[in-house]
């Protein structure tokens, strides 16, 4: 490889040609501050509009300061990263940025995790001269079911725009206006609700300031917990236990399942259940649907469309309802685990404990912001009473625990309640990309072939590649599996399906890079993909620790079918556990 030699702060270094000064400096242990820059290495995405101008340094022989995020090393370059000129420029530019930023840090939802706040601290900003007559750019605040946009706090780093367009290809956000009034938002500065937004929350996950935050449902949950007439049931998604610990200073990848359960009980939830139970249920329904479609397809039934698409990710559902509404019959009709849980809790379980569904409040703890929107969909309620009342994110739960003075680090591990807290390893891996289809295959194999599955871990389905595929041998029948995480990758597979070029039997899609563990409601990873990998590893560890690892072996699932649902795909199952899809473009146009 061709290399170049240069000097940074009097230290010599040799780096491959094409390396940026920022990365070369990092190798020397020189941490140059950045604000708009974002490196998502595993996604092959580098957001470097060169807009914030915080990372500038002095390069000998150049007239102007150079932004290190986008200036490549050249042979013989002499770089100085902290001269008076550089530090003054950084501070002055930071003062500019702050002069057009609200100073309500104390009450900002991003306070404490705000990169702008950190940078102001790091650069030692103590005053913002001229503020008394400085005009601020102001915009309308917009609250959607999942995301709040407060563009007064937008610093034009363009990270959200990159995520929404380049990674997710959702195209809901774009820079608009120019000059001082420029900001990033949906078309016509409309509400997000009336755009193609899928609420995947990736924009929120990368926003360095309080411009994009999630809708906070903790107050409503607190109110329900303090209402003696209500029985409050909580479910926790698999990805939460692999990330919650980070909010309390634990290493990424620390599993806190037991501590989380204990904390939820301490918060006052009447029943602490597990969404993993509903994940097992999803496998039963979705797996049955897959096998039914597959066998009909193999028999030559033209109405049986192959491939089948998973439908447990609400961001993904929103995406195909908007962009592929002509293919509404391709995805599985199975509801997501969150909604299956709600439907079962408010029917089967409510009956079991003898209360009316109206007196039960179901709360979900989710890594995901789209879940907030999903639980508010009209079709997931009975007479106006939603199956899931509130969905709060991993981050919100962490704040809630802190508010309640619960010292989660020193809690003793506790178990989930029964029966909706019992799950298999198949339910756990739902949190990772490839996990849903792996769980489905564990069950489908045994049902389809009638044989016992010897090797449980389909490692060929795992990994962080954006699009993956594998052919599984179902005792002579090849089953071709496609996996995509990140909506941009999903689009590639979907276009093939649309054009009749797809050869897959089943496709799993998760809207967020990495799957649920990388969702928009998780502790902020600030683009560090090692954190996502650590979470993924934790999930697989939890799977291995489980005594039962196939959904159809979950005794409580078996019991649920015996006592209540009949069999997978029964009429009652269909009524409670399956759904239908809409043309979201139409819906938005009508509402607008």
């Amino acid at each position, binding site marked *: 490889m061709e290399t170049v030699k240069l000097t940074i702060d009097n230290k010599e270094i040799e780096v491959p040609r094409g390396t940026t000064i920022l990365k070369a400096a990092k190798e020397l242990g020189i941490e140059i501050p950045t604000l708009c820059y974002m490196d998502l290495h595993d996604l092959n995405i580098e957001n470097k509009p060169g807009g914030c101008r915080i990372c500038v340094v002095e390069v000998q022989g150049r007239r102007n300061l150079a932004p290190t995020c986008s200036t490549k090393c050249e042979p013989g370059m002499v770089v100085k990263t902290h001269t008076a000129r550089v530090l003054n420029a950084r501070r002055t530019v930071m003062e500019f940025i702050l002069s057009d930023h609200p100073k309500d840090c104390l009450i900002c939802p991003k306070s404490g995790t705000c990169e702008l706040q950190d940078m102001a601290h790091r650069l030692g900003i103590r005053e913002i001269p001229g503020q008394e007559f400085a005009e601020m750019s102001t915009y*309308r605040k917009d609250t959607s079911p999942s995301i709040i946009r407060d563009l007064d706090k937008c610093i034009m780093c363009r990270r959200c725009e990159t995520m929404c*367009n380049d990674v997710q290809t*959702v*195209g*809901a*956000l*774009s*820079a*608009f*206006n*120019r000059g001082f009034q420029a900001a990033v*938002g*949906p*078309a*016509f*500065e*409309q509400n997000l609700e009336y*755009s*193609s937004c899928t609420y995947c929350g990736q924009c929120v996950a990368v926003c360095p300031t309080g411009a994009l935050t999630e809708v906070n449902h903790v107050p409503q949950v607190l109110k329900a917990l303090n209402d003696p007439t209500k029985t409050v049931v909580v479910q926790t998604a698999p990805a939460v236990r692999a990330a919650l610990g980070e909010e309390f200073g634990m290493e990424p990848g620390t599993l806190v399942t037991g501590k989380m359960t204990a904390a939820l009980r301490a918060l006052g939830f009447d029943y602490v259940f597990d969404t993993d139970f509903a994940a097992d249920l999803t496998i039963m329904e979705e797996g049955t649907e897959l096998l039914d479609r597959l066998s009909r397809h193999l028999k030559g039934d033209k109405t049986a469309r192959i491939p089948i698409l998973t439908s447990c990710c609400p961001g993904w559902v929103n995406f195909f309802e908007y962009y592929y509404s002509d293919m509404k019959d391709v995805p599985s009709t199975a509801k997501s685990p969150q909604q299956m849980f709600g439907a079962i809790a408010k029917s089967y379980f409510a009956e079991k404990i003898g209360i009316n569904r109206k007196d039960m409040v179901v709360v979900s703890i989710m890594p995901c912001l789209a879940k907030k929107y999903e639980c508010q969909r009209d079709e997931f309620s009975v007479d106006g009473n939603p199956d899931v009342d509130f969905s709060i994110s991993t981050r919100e739960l962490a704040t809630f625990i802190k508010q309640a003075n619960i010292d989660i680090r020193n809690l003793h591990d506790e178990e989930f309640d029964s029966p909706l807290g019992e799950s298999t390893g198949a339910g756990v891996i739902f949190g990772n990309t490839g996990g849903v289809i792996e769980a489905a295959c564990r069950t489908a194999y045994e049902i389809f072939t009638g044989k016992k599955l010897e090797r449980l871990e389909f490692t060929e389905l795992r990994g962080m590649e954006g699009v993956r595929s594998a052919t599984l041998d179902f005792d002579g029948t090849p089953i071709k599996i496609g996996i995509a995480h990140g909506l941009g990758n999903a689009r590639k597979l979907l276009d093939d399906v649309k054009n009749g070029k797809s050869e897959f039997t089943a496709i799993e899609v998760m809207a967020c890079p990495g799957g649920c563990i990388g969702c928009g409601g998780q502790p902020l990873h600030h683009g560090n993909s090692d954190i996502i990998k650590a979470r993924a590893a934790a999930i697989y560890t939890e799977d291995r620790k489980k005594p039962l690892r196939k959904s159809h072996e979950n005794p409580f699932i078996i019991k649920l079918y015996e006592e209540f649902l009949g069999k997978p795909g029964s009429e009652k199952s269909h009524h409670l556990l399956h759904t239908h899809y809409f043309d979201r473009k139409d819906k938005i146009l009508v509402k607008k």
Partner: protein
Amino acid sequence: MSSIKIELRKEDVDFIKETCSKFNNDPQELINVLHGCQEHFGYLPAEVQEVISEHLNVPVAKVYGVVTFYSFFTMTPKGKHPISICMGTACYVRGGEKVLEEFKKELGIKVGESTKDNKFSLSSLRCVGACGLAPVVLVGDKTYGRVAPDDVKGILKEYE
């Protein structure tokens, strides 16, 4: 946000479609398509941008981003005779506001709007540097000085 809601007729949609296909539905020709549509409609309402977005396969947010970037493009329709009333200090104290009120009453529109037949649009502007003539009204390129509310009808009549 788009303040106006319009309903596109079929021929309008067809026109946009044709314009897009004239440029091979190539997203790179977005600016040329926008030029063509603005020439035809006089402005670029949200609804037109939505149709363009669909045919060029560019997210509508991006279309809007481009429209708001270039000063040549506008989302508010201008009347055939745009009326601007100076609201600089001099004109204001000399009754500019009363003149503006009279125009609003006569035309039945607010500032920033156009009449239904698109003949007149109304806007207010900062000092035009003709304080000696205050209050000042501009209709197209023509300047009217020392306008009294009673003169409004007469001015409008000139453009009947």
